[in-house]
């Protein structure tokens, strides 16, 4: 399956999560065995929940983190069965990983052993950095996008010295004016 570019989603924390019609449609619409969440309408839900909405307010997915002692963080993500293959799952996963990092946890796990399409889901998760056997925990290091960070400008990076705005200045690279040496900004 080829995913299209993910739509812009509005990610909202549910302060007081309950089972409702949106959850029934999105989560309850999954094939049997995908999730084991047997709740009635209005039931309070354990764990931390977020809803993913499109710009018109339609809920297209949910994410949940279940965090127990010591940073044992399990994630659950569900996408509206009618909207799968649009990149929504990837977007929810990224949001969940960001949330876990903000809670000071460095790994997440997921279990898919009872999922009716577990091989497909296993591949989907492995492509996104999870490691582990299909019949046990799949785990991922989160918040470790070091390669991407190395490419981006560090927070303390110096702005290039604007020689024209300081004609008599002694900025970096202006050895001729008594300025200090900055190899990257050296002016000849």
């Amino acid at each position, binding site marked *: 399956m080829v995913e299209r570019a993910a739509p812009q989603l509005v990610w909202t*924390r549910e*302060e*007081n999560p309950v089972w409702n019609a949106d959850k029934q449609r999105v989560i309850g619409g999954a094939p049997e065995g995908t999730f084991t969440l047997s709740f009635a309408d209005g039931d*309070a*839900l*354990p*764990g*931390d929940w977020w809803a993913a909405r499109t710009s018109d307010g339609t809920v297209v997915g949910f994410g949940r*983190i*279940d*965090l*127990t*002692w*010591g*940073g*044992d963080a*399990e994630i659950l993500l569900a996408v509206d069965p009618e909207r799968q293959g649009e990149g929504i799952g990837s977007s929810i996963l990224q949001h969940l990983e960001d949330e876990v*990092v*903000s*809670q*000071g*946890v*460095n*790994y997440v*796990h997921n*279990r898919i*052993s009872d999922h009716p399409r577990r091989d497909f889901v296993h591949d989907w998760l492995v492509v996104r950095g999870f490691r582990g*056997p299909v019949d*046990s*925990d799949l785990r991922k*290091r989160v918040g*470790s996008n*070091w390669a991407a960070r190395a490419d981006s400008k560090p927070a303390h990076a110096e702005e290039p010295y604007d020689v024209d705005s300081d004609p008599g200045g002694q900025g970096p690279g202006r050895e001729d004016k008594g300025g200090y040496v900055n190899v990257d900004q050296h002016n000849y």
Partner: protein
Amino acid sequence: MTVTERTGAAPRPTGPLSKIDYSERIPNNVNLAADRRLQRALESWQPQFIDWWKTLGPSLPTKDVYLRTAVAVGRDGWAHFEHVPMEEYRWGIFLAEQDPDRTVQFGKHKGKEAWQEVPGEHRADLMRLIVVQGDTEPASVEQQRVLGNTAPSIYDLRNLFQVNVEEGRHLWAMVYLLHAYFGREGREEAEQLLKRNSGDLDSPRILGAFNEETTDWLQFFMFTYFTDRDGKFQLGTLKESAFDPLARTCEFMLKEEAHHMFVGTTGVQRTVERTAEVMKEAGRPATFEDGVIPLDVIQKYLNFQFSVSMDLFGSEQSTNAGNYYTSGLKGRWQETRRKDDHVLLEGSRSMNYVEDGQIKQKIVPMLSALNLDLRDEYVADCANGVARWNQELEEAGLNDRLFLPHEGFNRKVGGYAGHFVSPAGEVLDEAAYDGLVSQWLPTSEDREAVAALMIPEYEYGKFARWIAPPKSGINDQPVEFDYVHLAEEGVA
């Protein structure tokens, strides 16, 4: 002077004893010699552990340290004290006595025989619980690696090293379970426990809080008081596990853990005592210029360590915590003393949450709120130490008091995450909170000023100015006892 005269007699054992076999390469009371395959697997892990200890264990060079080593696992008297080079400490595998009649005390298996093997359906969950527990044990050793360089006394240095070697042993305890009961996957997880390192960018410890270096001794004392206590409560729940080897392992770990919390309780108490002395003499609040840690900075450290330790318990409500309980993997604190059905399918409790800028309460199923249940027990226990510290202030005739901040203060995890709650429990907006937070949490200036006081004192019986001496020494030894012999390069 003989070793016995100098080191004192070992505590007299009075309970049932299961002797630990020290003739083996890996000391143990699990008859490891009878399982050659397991023994070989652990013996191949042992050099990796020693390498880890040498690389990431205490950095201060020492000749030997007066350490407690377990010699038996009976109810009382179980340890032996002697000077040993730390890298020769006998880390081993010690499980509490087995009760052949033990039954599961809670959940859907209540009343059935405790498990001596891992049931297939619970294998992944049990292994994860053990890995998470195992990850925290060596993490604190790594975090405290350089602390010996600024020890306020030889007495305190010895206590630091005792905590460190026992955290290392707790790692052994978890590694034993992984090797003995979880096959190849367990062995791989055991390897990972040494490959993940505190502060390693690619492979850090599981929790962010365990990836930051412990920079000063007040932080260390707060850590052993609040964060090790956190571990104590987790061990207390695993001690109830239907999986008997895990339960017995954790029961014995709890015995060792008590000393760690003693280090924290008395460490903070002695810090407060010294500050209170200065305040009493000067008739004003103490400052860093007095050579002690001001009381408001002690409160900030307390606020920080308490709040990050609260986050360790996870979200207030958790499906997994409920499943662990129902499955018999993890009980509640003092499970057998609880006066309910120990199944909890019908029970409920109240829980705080934030809505419309106010802290409100709602009723939630008990089974889903077991993280919160454990956290509440922990908070009650934390309050005892604070009362003890306040005793020092009271005895000095001061009106100032330390206090535990509100459960919602400085929280990143659970229902309070994303809200701005003051230590007094007032819900603020972000701007108001940001304007006040430097009064509540240690600033970098506070930490630098505390660090500036951390000048090592290695003369026997002497103490840094910012901390009072203890009332008594370790194992009936005098306070000025030569608890640690530094290597020459450590003295320089």
